[in-house]
């Protein structure tokens, strides 16, 4: 009994230690003081205002969101197609292709980043936004494939066979039956892809063309000079986007599922 309460206390301590920095950022975002630190002098939204007035940051935001959405679209589309092939068809080399698709998760990001750069140098192509999109899609793809595949395995083939027997062609069957049944996984995969792209810094630093900043690289750049309280406000916004988005989506999904009952 005693041992258990120790373990409990220890776990709580570990989690506190891990989440405290996040809490600090969230709190300091509303601190009115010039300097980023305690004690908190008063409540203020001035750092948020400053944030929205900062053109560089707003541009970075725009880039990040565009990149995130495009990555999400690319990775999800490719992920659905790959999952369909891997789950519904038999072909030689299937295991190899599965491993290959998942490998970006396993390979250190730096290695992947340098590799892609060298490859582009070899093709004598310049760094571009397209490269960034391509790279992010590669990094996000495994997550989409894993999520969509897991769901697709659970969708019995009967449904598709029934639709086919009733007169629907293969593509119609996908649109009418498979995709709607797959939708929760597609959503989850798309969200994953978006947040992975939105958060990514390591590979982005290697791949971004000159003058293009995403939110993480912008923060990184700002930190080199000083820790401005603006960064706390920016951190707050990023946490809201990357945590809030999936939570909202999950909540909405549950709401609609309940209403259907």
């Amino acid at each position: 009994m005693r041992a258990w309460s120790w373990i409990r206390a220890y776990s709580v301590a570990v989690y506190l230690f891990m989440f405290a920095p996040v809490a600090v950022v969230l709190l300091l975002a509303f601190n009115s003081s010039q300097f980023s630190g305690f004690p908190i002098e008063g409540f203020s939204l001035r750092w948020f205002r400053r944030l929205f007035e900062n053109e560089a940051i707003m541009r970075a935001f725009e880039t990040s969101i565009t990149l995130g959405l495009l990555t999400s679209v690319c990775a999800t589309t490719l992920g659905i197609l790959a999952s369909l092939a891997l789950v519904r068809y038999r072909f030689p080399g299937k295991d190899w292709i599965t491993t290959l698709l998942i490998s970006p998760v396993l390979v250190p990001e730096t290695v992947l980043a340098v590799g892609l750069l060298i490859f582009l140098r070899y093709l004598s192509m310049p760094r571009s936004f397209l490269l960034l999109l391509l790279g992010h899609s590669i990094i996000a793809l495994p997550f989409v494939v894993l999520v969509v595949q897991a769901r697709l395995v659970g969708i019995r083939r009967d449904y598709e066979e029934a639709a086919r027997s009733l007169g629907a062609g293969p593509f119609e069957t996908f649109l009418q039956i498979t995709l709607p049944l797959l939708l929760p996984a597609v959503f989850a995969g798309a969200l994953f892809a978006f947040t992975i792209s939105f958060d990514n810094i390591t590979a982005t630093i290697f791949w971004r063309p000159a003058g293009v900043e995403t939110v993480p690289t912008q923060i990184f750049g700002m930190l080199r000079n000083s820790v401005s309280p603006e960064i706390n406000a920016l951190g707050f916004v990023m946490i809201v986007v990357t945590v809030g988005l999936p939570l909202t989506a999950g909540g909405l999904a549950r709401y609609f599922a309940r209403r259907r009952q």
Partner: protein
Amino acid sequence: MARVELQSVTKSFGQITAVKKADVVFEEGSFTTLLGPSGCGKTTILRMIAGLEAPSAGDILIGGRRINDLPIHKRNLGLVFQNYALFPHKTIGQNIAFGLKYRGVPKAEARDKVRQALEIVRLPGVEDRYPTQLSGGQQQRIALARAIVIEPDVLLLDEPLSALDANLREEMRVELKSIQHRIGVTSIFVTHDQSEALAMSDRIVVMSAGEVQQEGAPEEVYNTPATEFVARFLGAANLFDARVTAADDRLVELETAAFGRLTLPRDRAARLGDAGPARLVVRAEKLALSEAAAPPGTVSAAATVAAVDYQGQLARYFLQIGDSQAQAIQMIDGRPYPEGAEVTVSLRPEDCTALPPASPDGESGPTGR
């Protein structure tokens, strides 16, 4: 409605041959059952007719037209699955109307047809519900409605009753048969349940290990099994070793260890030669037990009741007749014979069937029940 024909259809999956040179005709408007244990190839045949598997060799004809290369969605077949396979994200109405959409049926007409189909399966007014809001039996009726509303040439039923509980299954089997009879669609029904097959079918095709063992009307398959497998798979049968002692066009005389000599009409031993070993098939319910002497016109033997399985109006007796064991099923009034009772078993030769012994490769060997 159409006649379906398999012409020496073979299907192999790698090394395994699931169906070996099947030649079967499913007559227009008939209700035919493919019966056999799991893995006998019955489902593979159904899936080949549906277009879900392609035959390795041979032709499949529907209404006289070869359809081997016709993709599934152009075959105009109704398919009913064991697990219903109703689209969970569509309402009942949308489920049933699904096939009509691809047949260019206008919306208003489709709504009427959906309503009619729901009336046929006796579930009117559930159009706006979702499949999960219905019970298993109701879901299977919807699946049937969805399959028949498109007026298919052939209705394919893949163990549609197996997922239902026992009472519902018997109710549904009467209903399914009557619906089929009413709309007159050529139906092919796959099951491993012999009582379903006997109750519902116009014809039964018994399969084992990828081969058709026997085809015929239920009474024919039941009363005059063509192989030992069929004898054992349908109902409870006793098989006794025998030897042909005399034979002509009309009669066949057999010698058995248990019952001595008995004479069968030729049509009960059509597959036997004029000499050599044979197997005598006696249905469990054709063995009569009594304490008195055997009635005239029967052959009999003394037996001991080894065990009794009391089932209310029936009792199943496990008997020891000399060196061989046998099962007998009898109606009882009063009390069943107790274990250890000495009785006389008798049978009428014309109720028996004689078969050549199973070939040693075990193809039609005693693999069934």
